[in-house]
């Protein structure tokens, strides 16, 4: 199977990448994806398209950079990209943890302040009225 001098894999991949690229353009035009993010993803997709349609190009780039083969270059770049990706996910995770903490703190302070403002309803030997965890409620007559 050979169309325009391309094998089946090349054909399918190049069409798929072109389709995603077109979708990205639409999303950026609609404002659903920010321009900077769109540009970054566009560059990655464009590079993938070039690498698929002209397989020699990665090898030529690899030789230019002093790396043996194009496939090696691709795997090195993948490793770097994954590290950057992990780091970004890690930063997001930290931000998320931070938000959860702020939420938990707000809840703790607010509910304590509320219980306190309700006056001496809190018994010396038991939980607040709303606490239904087992073992918290005071024993009868205590």
């Amino acid at each position: 199977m050979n169309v325009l001098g391309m094998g089946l894999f090349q054909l399918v991949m190049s069409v798929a990448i072109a389709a995603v690229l077109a979708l990205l353009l639409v999303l950026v035009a609609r404002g659903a994806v920010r321009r900077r993010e769109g540009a970054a993803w566009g560059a990655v997709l464009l590079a993938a398209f070039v690498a698929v349609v002209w397989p020699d190009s990665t090898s030529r780039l690899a030789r230019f950079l002093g790396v043996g083969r194009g496939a090696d270059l691709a795997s090195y770049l993948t490793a770097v990209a994954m590290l950057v990706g992990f780091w970004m996910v890690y930063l997001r995770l930290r931000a998320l943890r931070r938000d959860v903490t702020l939420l938990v703190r707000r809840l703790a302070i607010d509910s304590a302040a509320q219980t306190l403002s309700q006056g001496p309803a809190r018994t010396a030997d038991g939980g607040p009225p709303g606490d239904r965890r087992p073992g918290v409620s005071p024993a009868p007559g205590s």
Partner: protein
Amino acid sequence: MSDLPAGTWVVVPAYNEERTIERVLRELCLVCDHVVVVDDGSADQTYAAALRVTPYALRHAINRGQGAALQTGIEFALLQGASVVCTFDADGQHCTDDLAALVQPIMAGECDIVLGSRFLGRAEDIPPLRRLCLKAGILFTRMVSRVRLTDVHNGLRAFSRRAAERVEINNDRMAHASELIDIVRDTGLPFREVPVRIRYTDYSLAKGQSVLNSFRILFDYVVDRVTS
């Protein structure tokens, strides 16, 4: 009944401390009217035990780490109008007798931050490996924060109101000790160390930080500094 000046609040972060919390709190309540417990999402009866002793019991719905619990307690104490905020560990390693010496310099207006130091005082039975780890932490702090302290990982501290207002612990876990030292440096508020006793018991050792965990704390701290 209180030995400590009015307006002094003691914050006790607690996570799964049902075995010790009640005794620690009862001792604290003998010297201080305002004891805040922050139950950091314990799975045991820590919260119920705390409520039996103090009306100021707060509960994190989810465990967030000691740094987060401290910050919650400090914010709550400030909201309640605290003029001095102390921190005190829940595992029974501190002595309530030491609190007065921490609060006194602040009340006298001599400084804003007072840190307890076990190496100035008497630390009872520090295991050698833990001593080494703590010393390494102190050295690290001297290099990174350029603040000369004899003990940076001591849970016994006191802050004036204006110092407490500047405290913003961002690291939820254990790197907050170093973070607090950075706050000491960044605010430029006068600080001092006073000798305190630490009682090392099998319980407090088991609850404390493992030596391996210091690497995680170090990692936390470095990442915080890099990304802030």
